[in-house]
Every structure is written in C-alpha cells, then in structure tokens.
C-alpha cells in the first residue's frame, strides 16, 4: 500500500487575490510573501544581467521562471535605478554580472547651469522606460489574472541624482535650489506620462520610490520641498486611474508621516523602522495599522549570510511582529533581493509564510 504525502497543499487563494486582500487589511489565507526578486531572476534562465535589463522578452521569461521556482506572490518591475536617468541623457555602464550604473565620469549635468539641459521625454519613445513598460505588459499577458505585477518609478529627485551625481545634487539643493526645483519639475512631468504608460500596460499597482524621504539623507522639510510637493502629482495620477500607489524606500529612518501626508500610499515597502522608531516593535505598534508594511527582511542577510534555518527564524519573527497589522502585512525583502543572493533563501521566505503565516 502506498501513502500519498502532500508537502505542498493546495492554497485557497491565488497570489493576486492574496495580495489584494492584504493591501486592504483583510486577512487572506496566509501572509503574502514577495521577496523583491528582480535582477536575481536573470540567473534562473542563465542570462547575463546586462541582457536581462535591456531586453524585455528576456526579463519577462526570467521573472516568470523565477516565480515558478520561488513561488513569490508578486512581480516588481524594478530593473535598476538608472532606467529613467538614461532616457534623460545620462550615459550608463552595463556590467555583465551586476546592476547598471551611471558613468559619473561623464555626468549629464556637469555644472549648475546644466540643469537647464533637462528636457521632458516621452517614455514610450525612450529606450529604457519603454523596456519597463514592455516588461509589465508581458507579465500581465502571461500571469495577469493570477499574480500581481507592480510597476516601478524612481522619484524625480532620485532620477536627478543619477544624472548629476549624488553629492553634487545634495550640495546644489542648498546652493542652487531654484535650478534643482526646475529640473525636478521637468522630470516629474515625464514621470506622470511614465505612470500612465505603466497603467496602460496593465500594472496592478505602481510602486514609487522617493529614496530621499529618509533621515539618513535629507531633512524632512527639504524632501517635502524638493520632491514630495512635486512627486505627489504622479501619485494622484495613478490614483485617478483607479490603481493603487505603493511606496518603496530602503533608506534608513523613512519619514512615514510625511510620505503618508504627501504621497498617500496604501503600503510602504521598507527595510528599516520608520523615523522615530528605535526598533521593529515600536514601529509595528506605531505604524502597522496605519499603512500596510511590505518587508522587512534585510536583503544582504537573507540573500548572503543566513542559513536556511536562520531565514526561517528571521521571517517567522517578522510575521509575529507584524501580526498586530491584522492582515496588512506582506513578507518581503526590505530592498531588492540581492541579484547574486541565494535563490533558495528567497524560496525559503515564501515557504516560511506558508508554514508560519496562516491566518
């Protein structure tokens, strides 16, 4: 006589249903698990990183294969933080085995006068933003009724830092504020069109990344003036189309209060406790019922350091900490899952949610 052993019981909900419920603070069958496996997916089918990040067909095939392998509950179309920058004129470097980066030996903006060179671009006619739109379209066509696909847009101040250089931009904020603001406004107008293009391609939600809304970089009022007051129009455009807005920020000490006030996301994907919270307990107590948390595993630890047992224990602890969210929690890495990190650990995160995250 043989016994049938089911190690992977049939789940009650599909990923899309599960995530939609969690984003509305309604308890799904279990905690959704969506480690931000983006560039790491290129390894599943053996593509190089530079090819993955420039060929939408390769990216779509890789992300689908990664979802088959890992079973995560959502796609995030974060290709790299230089996508928009190239389309605004910045020369990039595409390493074979790592994330694309700006060539800051040749910055598009060399002097404060150069801020005037920034011109609005049409995302659909650009090289890289159109690639992301095509990735969204491909994922939606392949799995749009089962797995949520989230678009991704880097904030205008972040984009500007990728075409000026981070340190120079931060100094210009003090020395040449009007020029910085003018360029942020110009970039933002293109980002509105970029958001519309992602929505048109079918994105279930759009993730906005205002990276500098973080106490580790800027004063809150500075971020509000130089990004939030402008970027909020992108968030409103997305909401007006009936699509949810999510914020991602992997910086330290994110200004949750200001982000909620100006961008008003339904969820925040983050790596550290909010500004003002000394630890996760305090964070969960303060914020878990005000905005859905997506996170909060340390990507370097889960991707590179932890044994599988440690990944399980770390994720179990997070599920426990955010149990006070009453359903409003998605287990994830607090930043992109390391492209060269252990894919087994990403899978273990999902398995942990299945075992310890049942409601």
């Amino acid at each position: 006589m043989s016994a049938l052993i089911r190690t992977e019981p049939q789940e009650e909900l599909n990923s899309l249903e599960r995530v939609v419920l969690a984003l509305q603070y309604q308890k799904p069958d279990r905690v959704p698990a969506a480690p931000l496996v983006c560039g790491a997916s290129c390894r599943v089918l053996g593509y190089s990183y530079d090819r993955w990040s420039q060929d939408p067909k390769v990216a779509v095939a890789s992300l689908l294969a990664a979802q088959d392998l890992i079973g995560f509950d959502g796609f995030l179309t974060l290709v790299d933080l230089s996508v928009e920058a190239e389309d605004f004129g910045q020369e990039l470097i595409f390493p074979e085995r790592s994330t694309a980066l700006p060539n800051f030996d040749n910055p598009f903006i060399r002097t404060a006068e150069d801020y005037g060179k920034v011109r609005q671009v049409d995302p659909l006619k650009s090289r890289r933003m159109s690639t992301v739109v095509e990735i969204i379209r491909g994922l939606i066509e392949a799995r749009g009724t089962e797995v949520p696909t989230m678009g991704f847009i880097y904030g205008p101040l972040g984009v500007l830092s990728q075409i000026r250089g981070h340190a120079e931009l931060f100094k210009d904020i003090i020395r040449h504020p009007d020029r910085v603001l003018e360029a942020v406004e110009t970039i933002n107008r293109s980002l509105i069109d970029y958001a519309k293009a992602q929505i048109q391609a079918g994105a279930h939600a759009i993730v906005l990344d205002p990276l500098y809304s973080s106490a580790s970089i800027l004063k809150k009022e500075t971020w509000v003036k130089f990004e939030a007051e402008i970027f909020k129009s992108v968030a409103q455009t997305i909401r007006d189309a009936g699509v949810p807005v999510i914020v991602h920020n992997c910086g330290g000490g994110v200004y949750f209060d200001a982000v909620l006030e100006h961008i008003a996301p339904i969820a925040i994907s983050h790596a550290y406790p909010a500004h003002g919270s000394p630890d996760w307990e305090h964070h969960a107590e303060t914020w878990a019922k005000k905005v859905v948390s997506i996170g909060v595993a340390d990507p370097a630890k889960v991707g590179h350091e932890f044994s599988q047992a440690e990944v399980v224990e770390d994720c179990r602890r997070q599920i426990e900490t955010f149990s006070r969210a009453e359903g409003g929690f998605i287990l994830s890495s607090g930043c992109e899952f390391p492209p060269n990190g252990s894919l087994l650990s990403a899978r273990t995160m999902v398995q942990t949610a299945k075992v310890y995250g049942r409601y």
Partner: protein
Amino acid sequence: MSSEADDLNERLAVAVLELDEDLAVALTHEVIERGFDPWNAVEFGLLAGVNRAGKLFDEEEYFVPELLIAADAMYAGLQILRPHIKTEDHGNTRKVVIGVVQGDTHDIGKNLVRIMLEVAGFEVHDLGRDVPPHKFVEQAIEVKADLIALSTLMTTTMERMSEVIGLLEAQNVRNRFKVIVGGSPLSQHFSDRIGADGYAPKASQAVLLAKRLTGLVNAA
C-alpha cells in the same frame, strides 16, 4: 596661542559650521597673513567646524547636504593652509587608501569617512568610486599605506571586497595592510567571512576602528 589667534580660529570654525565657504577662505588667508600657526588653524578652526557639523548631523539638525558643504568649506581652507604645515606638526602619519569598490558609484558614505579620517589626521588617498580591486592594491603598495578602507552600498558589489583581499593574499602583501569595510548592506559577519580586519556600521566608528587597527589607540 594668542587670544587673537584663538579668536580667528573660532571664527573659522563658525564659518565652516555655518557653511560659509567664502568666509572660511578669507579667514584662512588672514591666518597666513598675520603669521598665526597654520596647524592650529586647521585643528581649532577648520576641523573643529566640521566636527561641530558632524555633531549636528548625529543630532539630525544637519543632514547630508549641510555636511557636504561644511566639508567643502574645510577643504577650501585646507588647500590654502596645507603648504604652510610641516608634516610633523600633527603627529599622526598613518596612511589610508579608500574607495568605493568596482560597480558602485555611491560615494557619500565613503566621503564622510574620508573627511572624518582627515579630521583625525590620517593621510588619505581617495581613489573615488567604481574602483577595480587591483587599483586598491597598487595604490596601497605605492604609498605604503597602513590601512585600506573599502565601501559599497550595493549587495551586488559586496563581493568585490573579498577580491581585494584575495589580491593582497595572492601578492603576499596581506600582512602589510589592515583592511576595513563599510556600507549599508554589510555586517560584522560579512567582514569576518571575507577576512577583513574590521567593519564599521557608521562613519564615526570607522575612524575609531582605523585608529585602533593602526595602533593610535588601544584595542580595549
């Protein structure tokens, strides 16, 4: 030190603290013109100003932009004073080679560490960002460095740090240099795994670590 020199150094410190580079330059010229001790002007003027800015940074009164501009004011003054300073004036002769590893261009953290190391008197050789592993090794050998400081913000480039250590070992020079690592995704565990001599989670701790590893302060 005369009270007039004290007063001038204090005004220099305040100019740096208040991010007034033009004033810092003018006051630095005044130090030279009036024949005051240039090293004292560095220590009690420029560096004191940056130290106070750093304290405000820790207290979240200042943020990265303010700290970077304070550092610019300090460097502007330092450029004027440096030719007038004898190297033995400041005691610390330790040399550091610092840079952001290949594949990463995020250099603000590295720049903060460089500033703080210079404030502490180290001779810093900054290789900048996106630095190939062999460059660290070549430069460290060339300048006879005491310490190599490696920085990265990205998980994809962390392993470049172990390549630097591997090259040092391959060239049989590993024991000539202490190697420290820092950056947001790193940890003591990672530092131990790649065989670095130390890891610092914050810029200010990097300076203490550098002092300890180069024998400027006790390990206790």
